[in-house]
């Protein structure tokens, strides 16, 4: 649900978490991103930075400049000014990301975890089972059968938190308990209903079942896609995974290394919230394709 009133909670002496609801949908994400944006535009005194997410915004503030209670009042005022999302139409890039599903690298990582930390059902099998799919092949078909909406960046530099735009591709998964101490660079996985790509080898909590050879952040900015930012994605982008096999993975990896790889980025479309909602409402979401 979307809460009738946003919920404010302190995070220590210099953060506030503002939660707009407790589910994952486009409207909540527009509220989270919208608050981040108006805080920036309004130049709210004492705010250092924000981190908008699926259904919330974290605000980092300087308690020497503004008190917690005063900041809550200011934020409430800004939230009131956020308009309806129905009229939103915004440019949205579509980025194709090659993904080697059920690859050996994430399988090795999962085996290592099962051996050293905790014996669990291998990730792809677990996600397929929990979502009533016939097996890992159907998981690949369903997971790659939608565009994903980049709701926010976080966890690690450039990591996109994404949700499927096609409700028929909606899957859910538990997060690792305890989390992994390492994850292969480029691993693709999900936790809750969110899908992410790990930009570098990091600890992690998502179920992983694919890997991309394409860098999604680049401090050396060696490809034109990184000229404006060292992160490939920005909120409001859409991502489509293109299934590839291991041979193609190695081939792309080679082209990335020698600089000849060309990113597949489509940049002419506008995303219309009302058109999207109309389409979603026309679907029978209980049917997988």
């Amino acid at each position, binding site marked *: 649900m979307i809460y009738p009133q946003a919920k404010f909670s302190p995070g220590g002496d210099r953060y506030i978490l503002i939660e707009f609801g407790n589910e994952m949908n486009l409207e909540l994400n527009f509220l989270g991103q919208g608050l981040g944006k108006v805080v920036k535009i309004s130049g709210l005194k004492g705010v250092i*930075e924000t981190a908008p997410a699926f259904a919330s915004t974290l605000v980092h503030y300087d308690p020497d400049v503004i008190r917690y209670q005063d900041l809550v009042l200011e934020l409430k005022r800004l939230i009131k000014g956020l308009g309806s999302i129905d009229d939103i139409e915004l440019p949205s890039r579509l980025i194709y990301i090659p993904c080697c599903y059920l690859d050996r690298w994430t399988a090795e990582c999962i085996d290592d975890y099962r051996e050293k930390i905790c014996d669990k059902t291998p990730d792809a099998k677990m996600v397929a089972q929990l979502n009533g799919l016939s097996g890992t092949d159907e998981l690949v078909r369903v997971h790659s059968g939608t565009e994903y909406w980049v709701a926010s960046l976080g966890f690690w530099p450039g990591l996109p938190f994404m949700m499927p735009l096609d409700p028929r591709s909606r899957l859910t998964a538990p997060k690792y308990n305890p989390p992994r101490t390492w994850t292969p660079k480029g691993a693709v996985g999900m936790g809750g209903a969110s899908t992410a790509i790990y930009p570098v080898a990091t600890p992690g*909590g998502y179920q992983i079942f694919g890997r991309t050879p394409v860098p999604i952040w680049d401090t050396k900015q060696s490809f034109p896609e990184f000229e404006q930012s060292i992160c490939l994605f920005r909120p409001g982008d859409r991502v489509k995974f293109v299934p590839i096999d291991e041979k193609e993975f190695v081939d792309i990896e080679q082209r990335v290394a020698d600089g000849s790889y060309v990113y597949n980025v489509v940049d002419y479309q506008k995303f219309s919230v009302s058109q999207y909602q109309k389409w979603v409402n026309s679907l029978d979401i209980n049917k997988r394709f």
Partner: protein
Amino acid sequence: MIEVIKGGLETSIQDYPGRIGFWDQGFPQSGPMDSWSFRLANLLVDNSVGAAGLECQLMGPTLKFNDARTIAITGANMTPMINQQPIAMWRSIKVVAGDILTLKFALDGARSYIAISGGVDSEPWLGSQSTFHKASVGGITGSAIKDGDQLPLGTANEFISQQVNPELVPPLTTNKQWEIEVVAGPNDDWIDKVGHQRFLESEWRLSSKSDRTGFRLDGPDWTFTDKAHNKAPEHGSEPSNIIDHGYPLGAINLAGQTPIILVSDGPSMGGFINPYTVISAAFWKLGQSRPGDRYRFKQVTVEHAQELRRELDNKCQNTSLIGEK
């Protein structure tokens, strides 16, 4: 310039407060883990409190200076020596060209800080020189300093003989016990009453699987409110799973049943709840604790936490130094 003879276990260039303003892209703040000791070190050599210096972890480096400088060593005691002669900590020290500074294993605490007059003059990256080695950014090469590295330095200030007022030196523990102040939230309503009691009354052991991204704690299991059990499936099915959201620095992040304190190089966002947050004024204690040390957590209000922050900031001023002739 400084020539690195031995890098030590993990010696990194850090500035204070670090890389701020990129939380929404996932860049951590980085910076010194014990900013109290770090700031005092800079004041001793007449730098601004934030100037880039070195953070040494558990075992320090061996460094050779190629010009005359003022330096200061604060934080954990790694038996600092110049040309094999012991030197005092918490005071300004003169070095001349050719002098060799050696730091060994930490006798107490975990992190020692070396401030050099003029600061380390490396290229800032996204507004900060702080090293975030897991992502290979900052510092000189994006990683901890290595044998043979050369560290450029800024323009040296004049030597002032001064020391930190002994009453205002951070009280490093000698019995491996720490009291860490926390504020409840942001997700305290996911933990039941017994769970809160257990957290605040138990002793927590710092795991060896800890680094500048997170401090893992060993202790009793957590119990949850109804909110954690009955929720929309997009949160994830484990009780500690929540729809991914922003993490405060210092959050006690409950990953399954494992609490992880998110520290300087930690993640900005993720899908686990944060029932408590360590206050900024207690960070130095995290920075000086070592695996096996024991924590007890003390709950304070937001206002009290902010008061403690101001008190600590006031201690990181020149008024904490005593001059000498």
